[in-house]
């Protein structure tokens, strides 16, 4: 059952991710992104990282992608000036795709992952759940990861200030120098 679920979620995640890349309309892309995020969250669930799954849905699907959607709507860009992809670009992207897939494949078939000397393959069934309980996160964040946690706070502060700085509208456009 779990195996089956994994394949469903993995397919969902990868498929909608592919649709993000492929869909012409950015709104659709954002929608597929939500689906993909949820898929990732479901994979977290399979791995028993429930807290992270929740976080994923809340932060990504709930906040980030919505932000994306807002911006897409806000900009409302009509892709009138869409340029058809040049020949070189298409060739390059095909090559890139092949290379990327090969790379991914090479990780998967990596002999060192199926660890030599490993008695039994580690599967979901044979391993313990880690981090199922949110308190574990709390414990780690306030002991081992205290400093990064604090720094992350400043990171968010900087990001916040930055967002305000950059996106604030000019009250008076005349103060902007003429040259763009």
């Amino acid at each position, binding site marked *: 059952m779990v195996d089956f679920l994994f394949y469903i979620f993995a397919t969902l995640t990868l498929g909608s991710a592919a649709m993000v890349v492929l869909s012409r309309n950015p709104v659709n892309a954002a929608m597929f992104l939500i689906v993909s995020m949820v898929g990732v969250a479901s994979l977290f669930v399979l791995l028993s990282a429930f807290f992270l799954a929740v976080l994923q849905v809340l932060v990504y699907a709930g906040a980030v992608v919505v932000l994306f959607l807002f911006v897409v709507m806000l900009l409302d860009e009509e892709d009138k000036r869409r340029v058809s992809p040049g020949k070189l*670009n298409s060739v*390059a992207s095909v090559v*890139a795709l092949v*290379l990327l897939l090969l*790379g991914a494949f*090479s990780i998967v078939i990596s002999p060192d992952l199926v660890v030599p000397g490993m008695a039994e393959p580690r599967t979901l069934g044979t391993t313990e759940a880690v981090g199922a309980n949110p308190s574990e996160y709390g414990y780690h964040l306030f002991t081992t990861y205290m400093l990064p946690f604090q720094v992350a706070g400043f990171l968010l502060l900087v990001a916040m200030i930055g967002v305000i700085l950059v996106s604030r509208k000019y009250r008076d456009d005349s103060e902007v120098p003429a040259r763009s």
Partner: protein
Amino acid sequence: MSNEQLIVSLLVVPFLSALVIGVLLRRNHDAAAAVSLAAAGVVLLGSLYLIFGNIREEFSYEWMTFGEYTVSLGFYFNDLAALLLFVVAVVGFLIHVFSLGYMKDDPGKARYFAGLSLFMFSMMGIVFANNLIMIFIFWELVGLSSFLLINHYYHKPSAAAAAKKAFIVNRLGDFGFLIGIIWSYWHFGTLNLFDMAALVEADPDVLHVGIGLLLFCSALGKSGQIPLHVWLPDAMEGPTPVSALIHAATMVAAGIYLLCRIFFLIPPDAMVLIMWVGAATAVFGSLCAIVQTDIKKILAYSTISQLGYMVAAFGLGALVVDGDTQTAIQAGIGAAMFHLVTHGFFKALLFLGAGSVIHACHHEQNIYRMGGLRLRMPITFATFTIGFLALVGMPGLAGFFSKDAILYLAWENNRVVFLILAATALLTAFYMTRLWLTAFFGEAKTDASRDASENDWLMTGPLVVLAIFSVLAGYGFMHPAIFDGILREVPHAEGAAFAWVAGISVVVLVAGFLAAWLYYGAGAREDRLEKQYPGIHGFLASKFFFDDVYEWYVSHVQQRFASVLNFIDHIVISGVIVRGAAGLVGLLSLGTRAAHTGNLHAYVYWIFLGVVLLWLFVRGVL
């Protein structure tokens, strides 16, 4: 004052004179002349003391050292040196005196006298030197002073060109000389004449033909032997006293002196070549002299011819079939040096006479524009005649004895050379008679010669003194025992040989004289040969095309070669290689600049490419 100090100070006095004039007296012409004359006087007195005081010295100073290599500068005063010193000091002093008159109004008088002093210094350096390096140094200095003096009228392009030519041709000779010196050093381990002589004596097989010939190159240039004679006629652009001193009496003779000084380094095989060069030069010079119209050029070719005599005499020394080679060589040296001395006096006399004429004729040098001077300039005429007769070998005058010594040597050793030299004697008589008759007899052809009058005693005095020497220098009492070391080597013909040689020499003299008289007549207005046989005249006037060959070489070979190399340097090395490499990098740079397209996708591709490369790298693919 010890003898050592005396010799050194004799060398230094003219140098100081040149220095003082050059630094302090540039504009004070009379004082400069006085200083220079005083220096020449001191040199004369000191030299006479050295020579007749029978003082002979050898000493040297270590000048610099690298490892085992030491350069010593030193002095070696022996009879040979004394003989040349005598000529240099006497002629030098007389020419100083003569110059006082000749250069009286010259704007470059101070410079001129500085040059004379410098020349005296350099010449005495050659005379005294006891090793090849010092000889070479003064050799070049002599060349330098010659350059400066030829260039006295530097604003005349011809004078400037002549000076340059003299210097470069001499350098060509010194090219061989220097190589010879270097070779000698490694061959003998020393450059001291003493030491080398000792080595040669210990083992005569140590000699090397190559060294001998290379050292001969020096004389080739300095003494105007074929094919490096081309500078000497041109050098007549200098003031006439300079021609007399440097280009007739002393400097050009230094080549002969050098050969005699280092004779032991020259193996017999090399001597043969030297002899032929000398003989060829002798006849060549006299042939060229026939068609010259410039009084000084005639004398210059005559000098070349006489120098050829001396060189031939030196070379003849080797051609002894039986007997002691060294003895024969010494005989060659004796003959050559003897002729050098007598020639020094009478050729100086001739040049000074010519100078006197030129000065009187307001610098007219063409003999066909003179004429009738014998009456207007009696002293000059008389002394010039003595010089002329001495040169052609009138019995009883100095030239007769010295020329006979050489002819005798040739008669004994090589009849072909004898014939050549005899022919030269004939030609000498011929062209000198032509000069003498044309310039001094007949009518005055130009206003300049018509106005000519005898010069004052400053100029005639030296003429008279030199005339006396020209008469007497051939007699034994002129050369007391002090010159024995060299003059007893002079070969004297006796008996049948004497009859033959003297007879032939008188016959050719008379023949030449009569031929010229009959052909040209006295006081000719134009060159008859040119009219009658323009072909022969043209050929002789071309001086056997030596100058043309050199000119062709300079303009067509050397200059073009230089231009080609310059082109290669500029275009290939500096252009194609250096600028090309820079351009290539510049192109690459433009390429990389173009890679910054500004398009983000391209940039992501770069990163993608990097990831792929790194990936392949760690996978061991790359």
